[in-house]
Structure formats: C-alpha cells, structure tokens
C-alpha cells in the first residue's frame, strides 16, 4: 500500500489502535453525557486532564502509586462531576444545548486555569508503573507493555460500559429520560438520579482515560484541550447517542490517524475532520446514529 513496507504499516496501525483506545474511552463518556443530558460536555477535556493530574498528585503528595490512582482518581473526579452536575448543569437541561456547551466551556477555562496557575503548563512527569515497564517485540515493532495494557484496559472498560447500558434496561431509560424527562418521571423512572449517575459515569471514564494517559503523555494543564476536538468529532462520526458508535469510531479514527501519519503526516490532525465531512455527507446521522436525532 503506497509502497510502504508491511511491518511499518502494521506498526503504525497498532499505534493508531492504541491512540484510538483513548479516543474511544473519552468519546464513550462524552456520548453518554450528550445522550442523556443533551449537553455537549466541553469540560470533558479538563476532566481528563484532572484525571492525569490527580494521579500525579496522589503519587507526589500521598505516595499512592498507579494502581491506587486507577481506582481512586475516577472516584475523586466523579465526585467533582457530581458537584458540577448538581450545582450547575441541573439548571440547564431544558434549554438549548448551546447553553450547556457554554457553561462547560467556561468550566473548562476555570479548571484549566486553576491547574495552570498551580502546576504550570509544561507539566509533570509520571512514570510507567514497574509492573508494566519494558515491552515485547512483535516482530514488526517494539510494543511497550504499557501500551498493550492501555489497549486492553480501555477495551475492557468500554465493553463493560456498553454491556451495562445496552443490555440492561438502563439504555432505554437513559434515552427516554433524554427525550422527555418529565414523562419518563411520570412512569416512575428516577430521572434526576439517573442523570446524575450518567454524568458521573461519563466523567469517571474521562478521569480513567486521564490516568491511563499520564505515563504516556506529559501530565499538563493543556493535555485536555488538545484532545477534545478530536473526541467531539469521534462522537459525531459515530452517531450521537450511539454508545457503540462512539467506541467503534474511536478506534477507527485512531487507525485512520495512524495511516495518515504514514501517507501525509501534516494532515494527521485534519484527517478526522475530513472523514467527518465525508461521512456526514453520505450518512447524515453518523455511522451508527439513528435518523431521528
């Protein structure tokens, strides 16, 4: 393909897939939140960044390592999400999504600002946990163990979320609650707590991705704002409200970026948007979206 040797191609695709793992986890959370709260959670990037930072803080100030962080950080950030939802977002549900977008945008400005003031922009180092150091040779490339773990962990968490949402009643409750919360409540569905739990769940996914990212990327206050446009694009390409779509497209976009890096690297950041325009022109509801959105 394009005269690129197969091993390199495979290697790039592998790396793309791993990057896709982050997109998938992030966009899964975003898709959940959008689907239920009808809010484009601009703060998602900031929460992801918080995930990375709290992992670092736990290590630096409390001596708690990676594995603790993986459990504790999503909980901590989840609590922050709970506060955000209860105090602020709650009042915006029946408004146009522009308002939610604006509020979460404002929140991300504040959160990123606070972290930047305290920890600077160039970020903090975070080491790969000892158990996951090293790597193995796949023949066509050297694969660090940690990257393999990232892939496995995010596939696992995505599957888990997907099963919980789609194969239990939760899925239809969530969609009903999105569409007509008042009526859903009139059927006895506990919509307010459902909404809170979804937001918290989405936020925890972001934080989880943040912890996963910490050893690979620099833990810095701007790590979130770099990834967020792509994640938005992923959710839209996948089809709003489609959880499976978000995950699948996450990996797909990772692969696409991997390929672009081989063929025409400068377009890597733009490739996803070109894909989006093409897809939306062919399929206005996104790859896995339903028409009525």
């Amino acid at each position, binding site marked *: 393909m394009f005269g690129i040797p197969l091993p390199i191609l495979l290697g790039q695709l592998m790396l793309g897939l791993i990057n896709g793992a982050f997109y998938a986890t992030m966009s899964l959370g975003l898709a959940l939140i*959008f689907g239920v709260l009808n809010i*484009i959670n*601009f703060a998602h990037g900031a929460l992801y960044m918080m995930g990375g930072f709290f992992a670092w803080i736990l290590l630096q100030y409390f001596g708690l390592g990676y594995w603790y962080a993986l459990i504790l950080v999503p909980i901590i950030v989840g609590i922050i999400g709970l506060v955000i939802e209860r105090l*602020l977002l709650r*009042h*915006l549900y029946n*408004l146009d*999504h*522009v*308002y939610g*977008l*604006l*509020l979460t*945008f*404002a*929140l*991300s*400005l*504040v959160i*990123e*600002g*606070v972290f*930047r*003031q305290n920890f600077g922009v160039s970020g903090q180092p975070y080491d790969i946990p000892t158990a996951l150091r090293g790597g193995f040779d796949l023949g066509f490339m050297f694969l660090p163990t940690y990257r393999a773990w990232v892939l496995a962990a995010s596939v696992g968490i995505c599957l888990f979320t997907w099963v919980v949402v789609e194969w239990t009643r939760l899925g239809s409750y969530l969609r009903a609650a999105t569409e007509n919360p008042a009526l859903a409540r009139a059927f006895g569905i506990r919509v307010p707590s459902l909404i809170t739990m979804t937001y918290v769940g989405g936020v925890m996914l972001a934080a989880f991705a943040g912890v996963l990212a910490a050893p690979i990327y620099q833990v810095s206050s701007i790590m979130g704002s770099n990834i967020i*446009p792509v994640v*938005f*694009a992923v959710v*839209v390409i996948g089809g*709003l409200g489609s959880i499976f779509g978000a995950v699948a497209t996450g990996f797909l976009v990772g692969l696409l970026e991997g390929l672009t890096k081989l063929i025409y690297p*400068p*377009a890597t*950041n*733009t490739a996803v*948007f*070109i894909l*989006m*325009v093409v897809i*939306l*022109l062919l399929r*206005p*509801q*996104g790859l896995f979206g339903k028409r009525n*959105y």
Partner: protein
Amino acid sequence: MSWQKTAWLVGAVAIAAALPFFVYPVFLMQAMALAIFACGFNLLLGYAGILSFGHAALFGSAAYVCGYAAKAWHLPTELAILCGTAASGILGLVYGILASRQRGIYLAMITFALSQMIYFICVQAPFTGGEDGLQGIPRGTFLGIVNLSQSLNLYYFDLGVFVLALLLFWRIIESPFGQVLRAMKGNELRTVSLGYDVDVLKLVCFAMSGAFSGLGGSLQAFALGFASLDNVQWHVNGDVILMTLLGGLGTFFGPVVGAVLVLSIQNYLASLGGIVTIVEGVVFATIVMTFRRGLVGELQPRLGRLLRAWTRRGAVEQASVDIVPGAKQPTDVAGSRSVA
C-alpha cells in the same frame, strides 16, 4: 415618539464619534469588527436557529484575503474589504451547501470540521505566513483621499461601515425575509408546507452570515494591520458563540454588547497575570447561570418597562395624554377585564 428615536440616534452617533478620545481607537475598531462578526453569527443562530461551530474560518479567512488583496495586489482599502467580504460570503455558501442537510449538533460539527480544514489550509498555504501571520497590511486611503493610516481616520471610516452594516442587518431581520427565517426557526416542516424553499433560505442565510463575518474579519485586518492564525483557530468558534450569547441571542444589540464584553475581558484583564482565563470562565458561567437571555436580552425588557413607566409618568404629569398607547400590553388589558 419618533423625535425620541431621533434623539437616541443622534446621541448614539455623538457618543460614538467622541469615544476614540476616551478609549483606545484600535480597541474600538476591533470591537466593531467583532461586533459585526457576532451579528453575522447571530443571524444564523439567533434568527434562523442554525448553530454553526465553524465561523472562525469565515472570519479569519476574510482577514487573510482582505490583507493579501491590500498588500500583494495593492487594492484600495474599500475594494480589499469587499474582497474579504465576498470571499467569506462564498465560503458561507459552501458551508451552507455542505451543511444544509444536517440539523442540530451534526450541523454544528460539520461546520466545525470545515473550519478545521480551512485552518489546515491557512497553516499550509504560503501566502498566510504560517504562524508568523500576514504582517504589515497597509491601511491605505479611503477613496484615495482620506489617509487611513491615522487611527482616528480609520476609526471614523470603520464607524461608518459599522453603522451601515448594522442598518443592513436591521433591515434583513426586520424584513419579510427575516420573518420567514423566524418561521423556519419555529417549525421547519411547516415552513416548507407553506411553500417556502427552506434549503434556499438556509443557503442565503449562510451566505449573508458569511459575508457579515467576512466584513468583520476584513475590518479587523485593517485595524490591527495583520492577520494571524489566531482568528481561524477553533477557540474563536466558541468565542463568537460566547459574544452572541452573553449579549443576548436573537437580540439586535446583543452581539455588539457581547463582543465588547469579551474583548474587554481579554484586553483589560490582561494585567492580572495569568488568571484572565479563570476570570473569563467565571464571568461566562455566571452569565449562563443567571442572565440566561444575555445582558441585552435580560435588560431590554426591564429597561423597556422602566422607560414605559417613565413615559407614562410623564404622560400623567402632563395630564393630557391617554395612558393606553404607551403601555399597551395585551395581558394587562385582558387581565383587568377579568377582574371587572
């Protein structure tokens, strides 16, 4: 009450004419440019109900086109501005063609994608100067007579353009076309069933919005003397939404107020040392939570009431004028009847 209107108008123009002696003119010019930009955006979101998340490209690329026209082709200022405006109008049309099949978030995202693609072009194209920007745009002369390199002259030139643009905008939204846009916002299917070509309306709307944004971008290019990637960056997509919403969505003056507000925050809080964005975030959040309809949207009815009360009092004091015309409110009238 037309003398009142005239008085308002004269007052406003007087203030605008005197303003550059108190506030820095380049700042004012940039504010006007952004205000026009926000108006163009408001036409789509506030009046036609279409959320574009890619207006940065319309604004920024006009700045490049206009700047390039003035610098490389040595076009006179007016023509360069026209070039920028037309370029963005056409780009807006392209947006419309590609996006008009979409709705809601999808539409927002496809425009976003388009703007990212244009950003990419701006980074790559040789004439934009990459991240150095297109520097040293000559301000030129107006009609070959007035030297615009004087900031004050350029300010009055911009003011003229600004007022004209606002008048045009007012005409558009207060025209039969504007009415149809409102209808389309309310219920698209019904609008079609009444015999309106919604697709055409949307296209025209996109093109107009693009042209306004382009006019804003062109003015800014001359005001600052350069065009840079900052204007095409995706944050600007958010900034323009902010301006419009902070001022008041779907209100005439809202975007103007919002543009001034956002620009003031960015410029006047710059000496706070790194907490600009935090303050910005807090201000925005507060406004979303409390002034949901935007500053103008919230204040206008109150001011209106105040004004009406004031005129009514005046009327009573004069003891000759009927109360009703000043304060006619259908609910009031009906309400008083139900009491009776």
